[in-house]
């Protein structure tokens, strides 16, 4: 068993499926000999050949459209959008076709594709390389929207995504691509989608997050523990379909909830969770549900970037505000 970073766990998962399932193929820009601009596909073309790991022409529409065609005809394409900010031309094929082929043809035709998207800010990149745009997809029926927050979950959830009979948008929080390493067995064991992962148990407050902010959320839980407050930390992991039961049960226990996401506040996915809590957990709540999010601005260039992203201090402020309600 090796200690691997999140990005390496992704490579492991891709290699595993390329080896065990001949219908799986990887396609995108620079994924072949270059191994991907983040090295997610490092070594794969060399190992599996350029008819399994395919460098496409420079066009996101092409990548998305080819993937729909491939998937509809029995392949399992794992496509890559080189960056989050480049995903928009793909929306047409993903929303109009990938998400709909099964329902459009009453199950005669299906679309088991995966789109991997390096996601989110915090790496001091140029414009359009730091978008947290999960809500482009969380409102689309027929898609799954998935985001791991650790190497082990990245490995297991990518396996599950590739094996899923329906299209999956797989967001990879690039800020934590190499943040730490974790022992991950290359055993082909998929982890479940459609469920939240409770990373930390606690009685006093529920902290809900996903992606790179899991890092700061766990740090907030540690800081709160020093003050005698036990926080329960929930990694949503699959945004669509949402496992709301786990969140509801946690809030029934704690009565307090803070949602942390780096995406823009208004229209962000935290609103969906807050609305469901208002609907189902009204009488369990001891305090308003607070959201710690990016502001309603575009993520600024890197000189201000870290002020846009939710940080430990802002999470703790919100947590303490909810705890102050009696």
């Amino acid at each position, binding site marked *: 068993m090796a200690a691997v970073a999140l990005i390496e766990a992704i490579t492991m998962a891709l290699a595993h499926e390329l080896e065990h399932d001949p219908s799986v*193929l990887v396609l995108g820009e620079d994924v072949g000999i270059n191994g991907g601009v983040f090295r997610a596909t490092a070594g794969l073309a060399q190992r599996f050949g350029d008819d399994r790991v395919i460098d496409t022409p420079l066009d996101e529409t092409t990548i998305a459209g*080819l993937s*729909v*065609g491939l998937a*509809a005809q029995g392949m399992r394409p794992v496509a890559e959008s080189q960056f989050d900010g480049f995903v928009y031309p793909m929306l047409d094929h993903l929303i*109009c076709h990938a998400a709909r082929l099964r329902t459009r043809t*009453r199950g*005669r*035709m299906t679309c088991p594709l995966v789109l991997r998207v390096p996601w989110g800010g915090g790496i001091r990149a140029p414009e359009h390389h730091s978008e947290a745009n999960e809500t482009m997809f969380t409102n689309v029926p027929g898609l799954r929207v998935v985001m791991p927050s650790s190497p082990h979950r990245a490995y297991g959830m990518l396996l599950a995504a590739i094996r899923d009979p329906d299209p999956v948008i797989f967001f990879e929080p690039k800020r934590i691509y190499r943040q730490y390493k974790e022992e991950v067995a290359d055993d082909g064991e998929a982890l479940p989608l*459609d469920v939240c992962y409770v990373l930390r148990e606690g009685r006093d407050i529920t902290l809900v997050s996903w992606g790179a902010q899991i890092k700061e959320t766990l740090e907030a839980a540690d800081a709160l523990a020093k003050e005698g407050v036990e926080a329960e930390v929930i990694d949503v992991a699959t945004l669509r379909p949402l496992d709301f039961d786990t969140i509801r049960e946690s809030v029934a226990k704690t009565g307090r909830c803070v949602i942390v996401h780096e995406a823009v506040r208004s229209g962000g996915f935290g609103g969906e969770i807050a609305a469901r809590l208002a609907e189902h957990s009204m009488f369990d709540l001891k305090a308003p549900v607070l959201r710690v999010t990016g502001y309603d601005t575009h993520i600024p260039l890197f000189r201000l970037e870290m002020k846009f992203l939710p940080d430990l201090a802002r999470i703790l402020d919100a947590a303490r505000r909810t705890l102050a309600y009696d």
Partner: protein
Amino acid sequence: MSVAASFEIPFLRYLEADGRLSGAALPAFARDAQALVEPYKLMTLTRSFDAKAVALQRTGKLGTYASCLGHEASHVGVGMAMRPEDVLALSYREYGAQFARGVQPREVLLYWGGDERGSDFSGPPHDFPFCVPISTQCLHAAGAALAFKLRGEARCALAMCGDGGTSKTDFYAALNSGGAFNLPLVLVVVNNQWAISVPRSAQTGAETLAQKGIAGGLHCVQVDGNDYIAVYDAVSQALQRARDGQGGSVIETITYRLSDHTTADDARRYRDEAEVKDAWQREPLIRLRHHLVGEGVWDEDKEKAWLEECARRVDEEVNAYLAVPPPPVQAMFDHLYADPPPDLLAQRAEAMAREVR
């Protein structure tokens, strides 16, 4: 100065508008006129169906419908030239191609009648359903062709789009992919001269639409789209070339949209009636019929009998369509995911419960 590259776009026609031979030697399949009777009959059936569908819409029995009037040779020619194992990725008008491949008219009616079950059609299960976002089917066909190539299958993917469709990003992306990966891909551009109200001349500066394929390194040819023999010939040659691993093609069929864009459109707002009347002179059924009659394999009695048979069959299909009850409310929720999540199932139950009240 030397020349870096040059190109020629061949043009194919075997039958003149009035059915006389144009002078080019007929391809092998067309030399026995009897072999052309079946496609002629299918073209006629398609037209009968089409007229009936428009009538259904005008009488409130069908939603908006896109007529294929005038396109019969282009559509049926494509459908007949393809093999069952090939994949068709069409737009939303090419019923003649679908019927040639086994789709039933009642299924087309179901689709325009607002029922998804129409897309779960008879015929090849690997054919793509109607595709509304323009030309996106061209990229899907490219993806299918890539799958065939990777798996070493002797199958082709064929996409059909219109003249307006050749302006779309996806069309260029598809022909580029076709050339970059040397795919067994055939793009058939049915140039009916109109993209709703925008004439062909406003779509592009290119002299022909076929030559757009040159930019992707594909074989390109233009044909008289109202000449069944020319269409069948060009398509079958392109498919064979693709099957032999010699790459993809763009085939532009020149035809005319004798109807409105859809039943929600009124073409008189933007085009001259005289132009339409003129186009009728070149329509596909007349010329093939004249050829068949001239060859002694068809006559007025056969025509009359066949039209009656078409009417009977179309009525049967229409009645079958009208007899289909509306789908139950839960159909909305079914087939969204292989494994429906619990909150979707809860909504499904809620919707079903409302039905009982």
